[in-house]
């Protein structure tokens, strides 16, 4: 099937305005008759639930944490992009659009990216109005910093906690609607099934994580804002509870999964210290404004204290390879460059898997106090984890899985191929192509939540009669029964291996064979080993406790079971895409100097996978990508 993204046509500058006008509206008095389910309350879900509630819809919002204030958007450090052009440095909506298309290695839809760039400015205004304390200069104006993949300063920030402040802004707007009664909040709920009635999304089945009870909720539309899936690598910068489960359940009910192989490996994370480790911690990309990446030129210097290695014996490899972008090269490129140095035997720290991020030049230039003001909390966090003082010696960094550009397929209205199912934020695939630029995730989450879905969902709801399906519908009963059987099966195996042993093993396979570099052979190895591991899981996993209770072991077992299926799809997608682009690097397809080599003739499309039943191969559908404004070109940062 050739998929249609239903993008508006005509001059790109007019597409969103024209589309907004063309969308049907729901009369204000009729909005209260419609109910919308919002799963996930991070930047996208929180902003959307608040905005839809404000418009007058009845919203039911769900999160697995004990409060919507804890979604993992909160951990984003560096900032949020907008095309305000306050610094007078040549920025514009068009340039943000261009940088994002190029940064995504020409694998995103032009119209979606244009809309993102266009509404970026509204986001900043909205957050300021909410009381988000963005950094200001001494005259009281908003301050900007630079980020990777751009040569202008367009990143707004709140110290090293921008995600936290933006999320708390959305949470405050959401709290206001909860108080007003337009949003009903369901904390500590995990979505375990999508309920589809006559081909239309009409509700969800959730597990109440406190009581273990399985609950049904019906609505006129279902929105998933359930984040990314890079915990499939086991060790990642995601929170422990982040999973593919909600998206995977929707996939198994017919929603297409697009570009799962586009995963972002973030270049600057604290290296792994031991096998017991449960997660990896990111250090903001903003550090590369002042930090310089290097490794020793000579292998014999590896044992030395970094401060004893002479300046001429240091290889500032990003500045050497990419003189015009230098340390602000985009993430995919910076990560591969770090790996390349370590593969060459010049990596530092335990196991030789690390590079230095050095602030000594910046400290000499602007003083330690200024650096402290810019990144104090990050230096503190680094010291807590490593016991090293980064003002005195360079940080050690290594790439780690961080973000998923792939996600459920959506059209321009953010609706999946299942009518009534919308997907927002990181959970969809739409704007980042094969690589996301820094400070763009916050932008997308809030764009989708505040300024896209409030319009596009109306266009859908105006075409359906409200309240036609209730939880009395047999599909809801069947869904609860299915979830219950699945849960009981997990609890009944009583094998010998723990859930986390399986998850570590899967993560190891994914990282080794489908991580920063992939090959036909490594992927084929995974396509054999993952199904075998999955089979073993269903025979030999040990899950303790009961179903009708707070049972974290059972929660993890369910998420791991889904990752064991999803990991295979990710590898299958990576295997089919015989090119390198952005975060998807196939070693067979690289230029003579080791850069990603795209194949626009054969792979300039979105690859969306359809579930065809257990034990059957999924079917690939394609949505061709057309570039009418930004011309397909070799992506260069040299």
């Amino acid at each position, binding site marked *: 099937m050739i998929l249609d993204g239903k993008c508006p046509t005509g001059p790109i500058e007019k597409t969103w305005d024209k589309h907004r006008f063309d969308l049907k509206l729901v009369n204000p008095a009729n909005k209260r008759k419609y109910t919308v389910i919002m799963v996930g309350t991070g930047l996208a879900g929180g902003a959307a639930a*608040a*905005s839809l509630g*404000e418009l007058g819809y009845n919203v039911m919002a769900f999160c697995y*944490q*004990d*409060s919507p*204030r*804890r979604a*993992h958007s*909160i*951990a984003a450090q560096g900032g949020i992009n907008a095309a305000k052009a306050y610094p007078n440095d040549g920025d514009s909506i068009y340039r943000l659009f261009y940088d994002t298309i190029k940064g995504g290695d020409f694998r995103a839809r032009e119209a979606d990216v244009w809309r993102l760039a266009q509404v970026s400015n*509204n986001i900043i*205004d*909205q*957050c*300021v*109005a*909410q*009381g988000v*304390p963005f*950094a*200001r200069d*001494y*005259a*009281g*104006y*908003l301050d900007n910093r630079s980020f990777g993949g751009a040569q202008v300063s367009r990143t*707004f920030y*709140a110290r090293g906690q921008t995600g936290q*402040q933006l999320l708390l802004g959305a*949470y*405050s*707007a959401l*709290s*206001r609607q*909860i108080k007003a009664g337009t949003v009903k909040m369901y*904390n500590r709920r995990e979505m375990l099934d999508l309920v589809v009635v006559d081909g239309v999304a009409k509700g969800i089945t959730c597990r109440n994580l406190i009581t273990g009870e399985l609950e049904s909720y019906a609505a006129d539309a279902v929105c998933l804002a359930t984040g990314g899936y890079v915990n499939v690598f086991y060790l990642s*910068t995601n*929170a*422990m509870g982040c999973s593919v489960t909600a998206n995977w359940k929707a996939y198994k009910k017919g929603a297409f999964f697009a570009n799962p192989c586009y995963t972002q490996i973030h270049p600057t994370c604290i290296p792994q*210290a*031991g*096998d*017991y480790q*449960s*997660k990896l*911690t*990111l250090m903001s990309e903003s550090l590369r404004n002042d930090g310089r990446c290097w490794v020793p030129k000579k292998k014999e210097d590896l044992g030395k204290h970094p401060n004893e290695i002479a300046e001429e014996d240091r290889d500032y490899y990003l500045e050497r390879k990419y003189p015009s972008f230098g340390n602000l090269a985009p993430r995919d490129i910076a990560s591969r460059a770090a790996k390349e140095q370590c593969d060459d035997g010049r990596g530092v720290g335990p196991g030789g898997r690390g590079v230095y991020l050095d602030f000594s030049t910046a400290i000499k230039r602007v003083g330690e106090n200024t650096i402290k003001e810019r990144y104090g909390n990050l230096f*503190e*966090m680094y010291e*807590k*984890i490593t*016991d090293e003082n980064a003002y005195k010696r360079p940080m050690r960094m290594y790439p780690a899985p961080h973000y998923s550009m792939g996600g459920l397929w959506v059209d321009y209205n953010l609706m999946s191929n299942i009518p009534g199912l919308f997907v927002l934020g990181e959970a969809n695939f739409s704007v980042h192509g094969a690589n996301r630029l820094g400070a763009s995730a916050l932008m997308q989450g809030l764009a989708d939540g505040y300024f896209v879905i409030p319009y596009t969902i109306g266009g859908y709801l105006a075409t359906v009669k409200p309240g036609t399906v209730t939880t009395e519908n047999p599909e809801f009963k069947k869904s609860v029964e299915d979830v219950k059987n699945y849960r009981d099966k997990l609890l009944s195996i009583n094998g010998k291996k*723990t859930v*986390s042993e399986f998850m570590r093993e899967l993560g190891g396979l994914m990282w080794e064979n489908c991580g920063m570099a992939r090959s036909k052979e490594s992927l084929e190895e995974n396509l054999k080993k993952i199904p075998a591991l999955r089979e073993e899981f269903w025979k030999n996993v*040990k899950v*303790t406790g009961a179903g009708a209770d*707070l049972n*974290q*072991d059972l929660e993890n077992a369910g998420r791991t079971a889904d990752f064991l299926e999803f990991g295979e799809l990710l590898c299958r997608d990576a295997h089919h895409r015989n090119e390198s682009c952005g975060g998807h690097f196939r070693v067979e397809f690289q230029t003579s100097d080791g850069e990603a080599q795209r194949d626009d003739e054969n792979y300039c499309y979105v690859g969306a996978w359809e579930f065809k039943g257990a034990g059957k191969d999924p079917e690939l559908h394609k949505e061709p990508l057309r570039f009418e404004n930004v011309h397909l070109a070799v992506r260069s940062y040299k």
Partner: protein
Amino acid sequence: MSDHKTMTLTLNVWRQKGPNDPGKFETYTAKGITEHHSFLEMIDVVNEDLIKSGKEPIVFDHDCREGICGMCSQVINGVPHGGQERTTVCQLHMRKFKDGDTIFIEPWRATAFPIIKDLVVDRSAYDTIIQAGGYTSCHTGGVPDGNALLIPKPDADYAMDAAECIGCGACAAACPNSSAMLFTSAKVAQLAALPQGKPEAAKRVTAMVDAMKECGFGNCSNHYECQAACPKGINVKFIAKLNREYLKAQFK
């Protein structure tokens, strides 16, 4: 990967089946712990052993494990988050302990935070306080340009100092009166310091203080245990700010 010396520790962990069940300390041994384990990774090790022997693992709240989501909540040796300055439990590392140590681990203890199971408590009272007024009532869209309001840097910095609160509940857990004053004041002070928050300042502070009382939190009697326990170092000066704002509101 690591060839560090390992530690063996004795843990006394609060186990409680449900809100209405009696709880008690159970003793466990944590073996093979290195200085690089985080405190929660040390509990992960103990839990793996428990699962393997068919016992229910210790239930505890945690999520981001990088000190920002505010989900983790344990009282360690009598101190919420374990006593390292400006540090959440998830960022506390085992290098702060030594081989042979005995450690007591308990949930937050405050009337307004009922225990759900083991180390997990219900903190929805904090959401209730925010819902009472911890926001500016702006609609999505229709707001002025971000630079239309100039905010002096000291005011923006002051607001940010307050806004760093992660809502973990350590302040109330540390307070002898189980007061939520530090938490409430951080939001009140953030918004009172900014021009966007001024129009609703009086209504906000009154509603939030009322909600705090209704949730069952006590009042502040200046012990400052909250500031000492706060993993973000939120300063008690914001409580003074709250009191002033509250007083001002009464004369409106």
